[in-house]
């Protein structure tokens, strides 16, 4: 049986009284790229954060590669997992943040080496070789010794992608990876993501880059006010949307 990489059924999330996700159904198959679009406050980032349990799901079912996120099911009950178990499941889910969140006290190389050495227990020499290779892959082979503060936003974000890839994830989550970048730096980051998609990485991308979504995504999902308004082929959803709300959004961002 082919288990989907991400499978969500009626996922709910609220912060206090505010309901942010009102029952999300979504499936991302292995090797697919899924782009989440929608106005700010629509819940797309929250849903992404739920996928690796940075935010806790309050209702419904959310599974990555067949494993429930943050819970263990026994009969009708969902038992919350221990920190150790949550951490173990997060290992093979990579995440890239809007504001990069590189570790500022470490060089680019040390950022990439950190988790393989301290989480996977890889020997330093091997982790170092891998990190050099990854930095070269994102076009920053010559910046290994630089601290984040000495890199441009686009370079920092590419280091962040290399850092996530160092754990050899089966799924990559991108939370508006280009929103904090100067316009001329967006292209380099999108190029890296394009190549990653072409290499067959399963990706869930929250983005405002309609062009990127059209070109790279297998599925485009338009969210508004905590629900999926429409989902499907990006050439359909993003070119000739069936829903009025999608059309209104697209006319604003394009």
């Amino acid at each position: 049986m082919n288990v989907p990489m991400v499978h969500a059924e009626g996922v709910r999330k609220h912060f206090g009284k505010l309901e942010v996700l009102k029952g999300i159904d979504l499936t991302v198959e292995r090797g697919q790229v899924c782009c989440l679009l929608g106005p700010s406050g629509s819940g797309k980032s929250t849903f992404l954060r739920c996928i690796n349990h940075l935010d806790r799901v309050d209702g419904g079912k959310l599974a990555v590669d067949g494993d429930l996120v943050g819970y263990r099911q026994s009969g009708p009950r969902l038992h919350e997992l221990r920190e150790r178990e949550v951490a173990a499941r997060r290992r093979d889910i990579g995440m890239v943040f809007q504001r990069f969140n590189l570790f500022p006290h470490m060089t680019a190389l040390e950022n990439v080496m950190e988790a393989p050495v301290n989480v996977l227990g890889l020997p330093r020499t091997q982790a170092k070789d891998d990190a050099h290779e990854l930095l070269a892959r994102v076009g920053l082979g010559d910046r290994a010794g630089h601290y984040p503060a000495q890199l441009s936003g686009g370079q920092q974000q590419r280091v962040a992608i290399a850092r996530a890839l160092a754990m050899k994830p089966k799924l990559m989550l991108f939370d508006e990876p280009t929103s904090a970048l100067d316009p001329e730096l967006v292209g380099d980051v999108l190029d890296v993501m394009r190549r990653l998609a072409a290499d067959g990485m399963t990706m869930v991308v929250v983005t405002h880059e309609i062009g990127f979504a059209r070109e790279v995504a297998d599925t485009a999902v338009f969210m508004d006010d905590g629900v999926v308004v429409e989902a499907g082929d990006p050439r359909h959803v993003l070119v000739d949307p069936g829903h009025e709300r999608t059309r209104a959004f697209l006319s604003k961002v394009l």
Partner: protein
Amino acid sequence: MTTTTAPADIDRPAPEQLTIVPLRHYGRWIAALAAIAALMGVAGSLAKNDNLHWEIIGHFLFADLIFSGLVTTLWLTAASMALGLALGTLIAVMRLSSNPVLYGMSSLFVWFFRGTPLLVQIIFWGYAAALYKYVMIGIPFTDITFFQIETNSLLTPAVAALLALGLNEAAYASEIVRAGIQSVDTGQTEAAHSLGMQPALTMRRIVLPQAMRVIIPPMGNETINMLKMTALVSIISAHDLMSNIQAVYAQNYQVIPMLVVASLWYLALVTLLSVPQAWLERRYGRGTGRSGHVSPLRRMFAGALSRPARAKKDTKEAVR
């Protein structure tokens, strides 16, 4: 319409011929001279004052008794700070924990040790034997005892001083460390968690090293304070510098000269402490681009003595 050709005017040199004249601060030089004159006046009057008995100060400044007191003061400071920082970090993490038991216990600790005078705590530890003659570890309400010792042989004045200073310091240090931890962006924790790092590892590898930048300056303050607060343990005769100074002036009645000896040594030690602090600040300032702080004094003299050198240094900084 504006014209691009400059008018034929002798007073207007080409742009590349313009020299920049930095603002001259004549007032600063006058103030500096006045301050130096005043300081020299004070120093001169102190030097000529016979009531200070400089010969006694000179005689005791390097006396053996003073040195043995210095050694005690130094190790007591180092050990108390080590205990305070280690326990304080633990308490800070407990206070930030989502576990209500840990939070409650750590809050109680801070409340108590910050809320009672240090002098009282020192006396309490020094005279604990008056409260409990024996220290024993066993199972309550039974006769089973694993370990028993006389309080006085366990709590020697040195141990009592260390406990009093260390536990008190832990309460203050915990708040400094807590402030440091909270100053680190939550995105850092999220990034670490998303890489599969567990909370303890995240704290040790990601959060604490960044918190150090905020922690070190107030901890430097605490260390200086601690060095001088060790003087309080003279009340339980722990043979620190101050205890020995008191022992001397109790015999020779030269209170003021002996206090000058003590002050000179405390000043010297505090001065030395700024060296490791500067080193630590540089070490943990890595990657921030603001690691080096140039004092106004150095800027003033750099400006006066080597203007071109400063310009070169500035461009080097900018390139870095």
